[in-house]
């Protein structure tokens, strides 16, 4: 601490001021810029020392340093610049700290997925299923060093098919509902009720959506009806509100003047909506839909209770159980193929996780691109 608590007033006074430049009286009583870096350096050194005392580890070091820095910087600013500036400094550092803290899990998750997932990505993983891969096969690859076999092809296909069907159900329903809310239902009780319940629907836990679809089809087709389309219905329950919300927002920002211009030309309402309103908003709608897909593609719980789990390729959503990437990851971790040698399963799980993250990121990126590419043309 001694390095940092030397009286700063004294030290600023001691710095030789170039005689040519007049000291600005408005800058008086300000902490020089380097002082805060000095405090930071001091905090890191003391933090390192303190953490070695209690048995060195990175987390303790970071926490100690951060706390020392926060306290020291606040005290110094308070002493030099006054109490108000001191409080301001403390909150500023705290808020910066929040941001850094929030980045840690993100960085850790992405790093883990890359580090553990990359080794498992190969053509075998991408293009074969888990059909015929048993615990014995995994034991062999661990004991004899044979390559890990078994892949997620069936799960990738299941993910794509179920998401596709969910999209086919949700997009028309969601968009038409948004059209009703914005273009027809303004101020009506029914539209208020729909808005309210769409909001409520956004909060349905995903597992409850899964239970609903399972219960619904269970009553029609018998208690163990599990197949892709049931999962697609469950995902639709989660997806529809997002589609409604984003479409609604986009339709709302289409200027009313455009609608009126179209009406004044003697164009009918439905044609106005289809040819003027929707095209104007299409970029936002498309990116909203893409984000909705990105949201449901990673859902696990509803799939677990609706589509079951399969190890072979099933391209028919209307019959038999199906796997998706998220359920594949879940089962590879929770019920490893070989309970004694879990490494091959863990490797497959992380490879699948990497694949899933890439899909989600790609969808997010597409959403951004769509939003910028199809935005209404400007410029001369």
């Amino acid at each position, binding site marked *: 601490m001694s390095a940092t608590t030397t009286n700063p007033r004294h030290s600023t006074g001691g710095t030789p001021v170039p005689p040519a430049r007049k000291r600005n009286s408005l800058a008086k009583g300000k902490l020089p810029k380097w002082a805060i870096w000095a405090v930071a350096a001091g905090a890191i050194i003391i933090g390192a020392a303190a953490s070695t005392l209690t048995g060195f580890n990175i987390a303790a070091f970071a926490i100690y340093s951060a706390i020392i820095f926060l306290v020291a910087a606040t005290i110094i600013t308070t002493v030099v610049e006054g109490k108000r*500036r001191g*409080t*301001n400094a403390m909150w*500023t550092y705290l*808020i*910066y700290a*929040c941001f850094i803290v*929030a*980045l840690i*899990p*993100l960085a850790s*998750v992405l790093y*883990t*997925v890359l580090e553990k997932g990359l080794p498992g990505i190969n053509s075998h993983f991408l293009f074969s299923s888990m059909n015929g891969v048993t615990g014995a096969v995994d034991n062999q690859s661990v004991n004899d060093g044979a390559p890990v076999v078994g892949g997620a092809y069936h799960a990738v296909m299941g993910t794509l098919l179920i998401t596709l069907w969910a999209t086919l159900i949700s997009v*028309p*329903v969601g968009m*038409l*509902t948004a059209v*009703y*809310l914005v273009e*027809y*239902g303004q101020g009506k009780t*029914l*539209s208020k009720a729909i808005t309210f*319940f769409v*909001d*409520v*629907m956004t*909060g*349905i836990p*995903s*597992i*409850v959506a899964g*239970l*609903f679809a*399972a*219960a619904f089809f269970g*009553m029609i087709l018998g*208690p163990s009806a599990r197949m892709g389309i049931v999962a697609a219905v469950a995902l639709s329950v989660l997806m529809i509100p997002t589609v*409604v919300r984003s479409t609604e927002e986009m339709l709302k920002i289409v200027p009313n003047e455009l609608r009126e211009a179209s009406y004044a030309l003697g164009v*009918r*309402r*439905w044609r106005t*909506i*289809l040819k003027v309103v929707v095209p104007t908003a299409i970029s936002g709608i498309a990116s909203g839909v893409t984000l909705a897909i*990105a949201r449901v*593609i*990673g859902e*696990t*719980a509803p799939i*677990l*209770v609706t589509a*079951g789990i399969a190890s072979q390729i099933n391209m028919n959503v209307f019959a038999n159980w199906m796997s998706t990437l*998220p359920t594949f*990851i879940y089962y590879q*971790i929770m019920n490893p193929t070989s309970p004694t040698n879990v490494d091959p399963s863990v490797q497959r799980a992380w490879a699948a996780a990497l694949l*899933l*993250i890439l899909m*989600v990121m790609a969808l*997010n990126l597409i959403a951004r691109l769509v939003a910028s590419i199809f935005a209404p043309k400007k410029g001369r």
Partner: protein
Amino acid sequence: MTTNALTSKSSTSGRMGDKIFSGAALAAGILILVTLFAVAVFLLIQALPTFFADPAEVSGGQGFFTYIWPIVVGTVIAAAIALLIATPVGLGVALFISHFAPRKVAGPLGYVIDLLAAIPSVIYGAWGYMVLAPTLVPGFEWLSKNLGFIPLFEGPASQTGKTMLTAGIVLAVMVLPIITSLSREIFLQTPKLHEEAALALGATRWEMIKTAVIPFARPGIISAVMLGLGRALGETMAVALVLSTGNLIPSLIKTGNQTIAAEIALNFPEAFGLRLSELIAAGLVLFLITLLVNIIARGIISRHKEFSGAN
């Protein structure tokens, strides 16, 4: 007025188009209401056998209430831990992006935080299971050694790290982007006039935030936290993968406790008969809890809409 030139010209096909289109839009809207209603009804019908079954046949052998109570409490504990962590950090991040970060990087930084929301829950679960839980073990041991006299941190600490506290932290990471993105939006909506008025009086940045931004955003913050709560209550995978389940116990750093969503996910695939309707009944309870939380959150938002200045 028998020969009104304006009536003869109107094309019937065009009118039909209008009717069909508006009818389709209306039908879609009603379908959503029906679906939500159906969710409640189907769950209720499937859950009914549980409520009328012989208490001895229900899991735990003492009826549905004894079965559901501990996992409801577990759900609430997990969500509470998540919110205790995510609320201050999330608001801090939101303020950082809206008022502290340089204008140029604020947008991209917001996008980075939104990435947190894009990562699927199962991956958080896997991360919590394989990375976070082992990392936290020394911390849990420290807690049990130094704060073990508090029932919450009573030892001996779990050696796998798969405890309620770990699950709560994973949930916090998942809830954080919700709180951040909603409150960020509201912070950014603070009328520039109010902010400039505060700054012009010589307020520091923090004083400006305290006098102009926070009071304006308070209802928004509350509802953002409530929506985060709704998410934390219903989140399944993080808990199912991270928590090593057991009976309801006060200690957060020992193996034990369970949440509704995880209970369903872990047991549903093998369930049949009464066990099935038990789990669906549990789902119904979860649905009602989250419904209540969401309705309150939405209520707060809409009640304060007229003051938000967003129009």
